[in-house]
């Protein structure tokens, strides 16, 4: 029982970062019907920017909360700009081109960012540990029955889950309650009708990329702190978050969030009860199963052909 509880906590903690990345996939798909395969690299660049900020501010010895705020804020801002630039330079000129052209471009952007990160001007080829801004600590320790049956929750688990839940709340508010969010929902349905409403559809698309990229940055920073920073770190989480978005029903925002948590849980349970050798493969098994059984995903939405 305690072992299972521990696995569930770990799964939610990992799933929370998948959820944050998956939100960007699903929102971009919503407005452009495009799988932005460079999204995992935006997550990686979030980690890289956070790394440089953390090194930069280290000598000043700021309190943990101040340092974290600057690191997260800086990474989110930088990735928002990056997301804007990716859409503006790579995807916008191809807006009316066949899907395949855009898909290949997305993969190209992804490779470009991976290789840029491997140069020493951006980061370098070798993994680096994140500067010690916040130490991993057990904050909840729960003894169940005997001294051997302990369940622990670390501050990083709380950070991951707290940020993910909090940001999901902020996102829901933006999408459901603000003028920008209404424009986003309109543009997800149709460009031409939206522009007849007076909406600048290009600006709405930029906004969507910036929002999704800032969320991916948060996941990148959490994982940088939790593990380390490396130029290819975006690959696996990127693919798994993509599976999470498909699982939740691509285009559905709550679906992406739930999908992320579910993928995190499945992965951790497989690791804990079967073998860690399967933990990466399981996401792809899930993908194949969804595509066979229910291609519209758990919360799959009504799908309109986009004009």
């Amino acid at each position, binding site marked *: 029982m305690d072992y299972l509880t521990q696995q569930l906590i770990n799964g939610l903690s990992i799933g929370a970062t998948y959820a944050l990345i998956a939100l960007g996939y699903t929102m971009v798909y919503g407005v452009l019907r495009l799988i932005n395969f460079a999204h995992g690299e935006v997550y990686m660049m979030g980690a890289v920017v956070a790394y440089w900020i953390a090194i930069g501010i280290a000598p000043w010895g700021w309190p943990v909360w101040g340092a974290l705020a600057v690191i997260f804020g800086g990474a989110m801002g930088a990735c928002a700009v990056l997301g804007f630039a990716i859409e503006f330079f790579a995807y916008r000129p191809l807006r009316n081109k066949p899907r395949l052209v855009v898909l290949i471009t997305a993969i190209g952007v992804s490779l470009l960012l991976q290789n840029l990160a491997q140069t020493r001007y951006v980061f370098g080829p070798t993994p680096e540990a994140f500067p010690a801004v916040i130490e991993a600590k057990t904050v909840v320790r729960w003894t169940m029955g005997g001294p051997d049956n302990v369940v622990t929750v670390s501050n990083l688990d709380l950070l991951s889950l707290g940020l993910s839940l909090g940001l999901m709340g902020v996102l829901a508010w933006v999408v459901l309650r603000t*003028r920008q969010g*209404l*424009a986003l*929902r*309109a543009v997800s*349905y*149709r460009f*031409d*009708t*939206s*522009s*007849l*409403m*007076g*909406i*600048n*559809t290009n600006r709405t698309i930029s906004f969507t990329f910036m929002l999704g990229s800032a969320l991916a940055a948060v996941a990148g920073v959490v994982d940088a702190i939790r593990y380390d920073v490396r130029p290819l770190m975006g690959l696996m989480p990127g693919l798994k978050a993509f599976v999470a978005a498909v699982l939740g029903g691509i285009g559905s925002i709550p679906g992406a969030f739930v999908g992320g948590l579910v993928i995190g849980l499945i992965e951790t349970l497989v690791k804990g009860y079967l073998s860690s050798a399967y933990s990466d493969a399981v996401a792809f098994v899930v993908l194949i199963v969804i595509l066979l059984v229910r291609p519209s995903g758990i919360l799959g*939405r*009504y799908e*309109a052909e986009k004009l």
Partner: protein
Amino acid sequence: MLLSVNNLEVSYGAIAALQGVSVSIDRGEIVALIGANGAGKTTLLRTISGLLKAKGGSVLWEGKKELRGLAAHEVVGLGISHVPEGRQIFPHLSARENLMLGGYQERSNGVLRERMERVFGLFPVLAERSEQRGGTLSGGEQQMLAIGRAMMGRPRLLLLDEPSLGLAPLVVRKIFQIIREINAEGTTIFLVEQNAHMALTVAHRGYVLQTGRVMLTDTASELLEHSDVKKAYLGG
């Protein structure tokens, strides 16, 4: 002239849809544009709105502002609202959200509330249905929502593309009555219709479009009596 279209040419690839069309609309008028399927009526409206790019000619707003080259959202900003063919309600959004989108460029919630009250005055059924998803409204209610949505932008010129399409005669009569009411309150209207009789009954003037060219223009009452119009569009 509020709007003057001069020698407009629009093509879809090799297909010339408009071949030198000229139309002018004065303040306060209801101008009807009638024509058969494929005549180019929708193409003309979409070009005025900035959804399609013209190859030649000009579209002048208030005699001086060139609309060609403006993006659709910029045209809306000048005071031109377009009710598209087939209504194009956002099916997943509530009626209220559809209306809010029509007033997207207005940032004051107070002003938007006032406008929505006015729309509810024109179409009381929308007030009852305001929380219902657009896609679940009946055809007539969707047409009312589409017109109400356009009115949320407080347009000076309202472009209507076949508001009678697919509606029962009673509903069509109601819609045309509202069109008159909107016009009486000061909004200029450019009305595209295949229902030539209805359109010419409410309009002051009319144009007859045939395969991308204006074949005829006159006052609405003259067009209703014109033998060619009677034969081709009024069923004898």
